[in-house]
């Protein structure tokens, strides 16, 4: 019977992944539609391409040559076809291929997001478990109160406060930029390998991750308290298992199932909302690039950024669902059972 289950779970997994992939494509197409609409409704692309002395006839000619008179569906189709190969055209402002621009900025954003995501997860889970197990002692009270500040202070203010304390007053850490970077491979430039790069990463990573950390911590605490009240925890205690085994073996694993989802989704928003942190710390990532292109109505960059963030969310969602599958054995079989 066991082998039957395993085979079922395998084919079931495949069907599940395929279904999710189809859903992902639909999401991406919808976002592409919004991105495409930007071109048509945020100013006239011709106006931003030509000089003032261009005649109306020349403009009409250009419009025709660029295919802007084609039916909407044809234009959208072309946009999607090009976008799927990574071609978002040329930046109006910088006169460089958009994809190149974004790829050159992406490592900075990803490094920042990953470091703050890991910080948020590690400290969030750690503090969450601690405050759940040591309810009522002064330290967990302090942590809970401090977390309220983390939740309620806006990101830019935290950034500015950190700069003020650690860069201006104490002069321990740099206040802006990425420090020295090292080229790794063809297009990845990392700041993690140099001392100044790591030093520059600390303040922005804390700024970006603090809110997520408090969120994860409060979630872990609430889930943990919930799990500690369940019958299987009582039964585990009644069997004389050590506190360590009960708390970390039995309770924490059950707590992590919902926490993984939230954390995964948070990683998406860390990347998406790095805009503010990157602006405060002048971090040379895609967020800063996006803000600048908004200022100059650089539509191709804006559209590409939109699609990139959507892609990040879709991929993370997919990974989270697969993780869920890996952690919770019930999901693997309940689907199989439902079909029998």
């Amino acid at each position, binding site marked *: *019977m*066991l082998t039957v*289950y395993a085979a079922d779970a395998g084919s079931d997994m495949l069907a599940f992944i395929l279904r999710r992939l189809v859903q992902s494509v639909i999401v991406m197409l919808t976002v592409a539609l919004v991105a495409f609409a930007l071109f048509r409704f945020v100013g006239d692309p011709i106006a931003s391409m030509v000089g003032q002395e261009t005649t109306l006839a020349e403009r009409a000619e250009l419009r025709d040559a660029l295919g802007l008179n084609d039916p909407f569906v044809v234009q959208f189709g072309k946009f999607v076809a090009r976008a799927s190969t990574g071609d978002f055209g040329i930046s109006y402002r910088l006169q460089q291929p958009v994809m190149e621009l974004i790829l050159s900025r992406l490592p900075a954003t990803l490094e920042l997001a990953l470091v703050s995501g890991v910080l948020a997860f590690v400290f969030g889970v750690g503090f969450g478990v601690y405050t759940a197990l040591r309810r009522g002692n002064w330290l967990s009270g302090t942590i809970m109160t401090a977390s309220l500040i983390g939740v309620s202070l806006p990101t830019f203010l935290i950034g500015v406060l950190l700069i003020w304390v650690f860069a201006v007053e104490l002069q321990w850490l740099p206040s802006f930029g990425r420090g020295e970077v090292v080229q790794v491979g063809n297009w990845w430039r990392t700041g993690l390998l140099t001392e100044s790069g790591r030093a520059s990463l600390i303040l922005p990573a804390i700024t970006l991750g603090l809110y997520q950390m408090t969120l994860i911590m409060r979630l872990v605490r609430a889930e943990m308290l919930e799990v500690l009240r*369940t*019958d*299987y925890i*009582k*039964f*585990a*205690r*009644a*069997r*004389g*298992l*050590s*506190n360590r*085994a009960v708390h970390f*073996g*039995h309770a924490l*694993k*059950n707590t992590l*199932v919902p926490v993984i989802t939230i954390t995964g989704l948070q990683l998406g928003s860390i990347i998406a909302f790095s805009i503010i942190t990157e602006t405060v710390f002048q971090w040379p990532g895609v967020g800063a690039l996006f803000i600048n292109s908004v200022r100059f109505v650089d539509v191709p960059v804006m559209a590409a950024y939109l699609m990139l963030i959507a892609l990040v969310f879709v991929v993370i969602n997919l990974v989270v669902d697969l993780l869920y599958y890996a*952690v*919770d*054995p*019930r999901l693997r*079989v*309940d689907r199989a059972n439902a079909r029998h």
Partner: protein
Amino acid sequence: MAPVHKSGPLLSVRDLVVEFPTRRGTLRALDKVSFDIAEGEVLGMVGESGAGKSLTGAAIIGLLEPPGRIAGGEILLRGERIDNLPREKMRRIRGRRIGMVFQDPLTSLNPLYTVAEQLIETIRTHMDVSEKEARKRAVALLDRVGIPAAARRIDDYPHHFSGGMRQRVVIALALAAEPELVIADEPTTALDVSVQAQIIDVLKEICAERGASVMLITHDMGVIAETADRVAVLYAGRLAEIGPVRDVIQAAEHPYTVGLMGSIPTLTQTAERLTQIPGSMPRLDAIQQGCAFNPRCTRAFDRCRVERPDLIARGEERQVACWLYDPAKEAQDV
């Protein structure tokens, strides 16, 4: 049926008081409960919901939910006090010397671990054996509690098993470290009627085999009649009556027990209506002065409303907490 215990009881509960401090004062959930469980004996514990049956079990195994606490009395296991042990020492007793089976098998097992993982962890917590040896024992245990193809099923997750099978797994887990006493807290209440008897049989057989005593908490008098050697009746956190199961069922003495037995349908009697006890058990913050049962008791007299009766010995093995059986009063009546 009841074994005569000369070497002293396995478990002895003396004047146990459990209290819950609340904002509106302290609630006494258990009030001076005393009973013994002899070696190899099955003691049934009956009473309505909220009478304190489960609480007695939780107090014995040291798992009272805070803010509940033992406020008085003592609990002795083989003559050794266990109600005031340091947490770590009490933990070593749980599972190893006192095992516990809970009511709902669907929620008693951790859904994220296989049965093997949970059994092996429990065995190795209490016994110094290798992983391989623990696994061997685990398979043997599962086999003993009646899981078919135990060697294969052991690597399944709890949700692969039906409710009855899961309760067998729970029993295997509770007995994994060979405890001397098993507290079974309504082990069949959540189960299908058709498997209840099987589960009780499995539990009873294995415990008899190993010489383990059982404290069987239930409100199913049928289960008690069939399984227990003696029965203790709880009412509003107080012991009303305790004695050999046949005596208590056939000739109940405490008016509450009489009412309880009268409310059970039997095949031999053709009663139009089952008798019922008027009223309901008082809330813990509204227990009357005197005997807790006096407002509902048809035979209550003045003394019952003023003075609380202690357990009065009735013969060798029976005790009743009722003024009707006060030797002084009986002498008067005669």
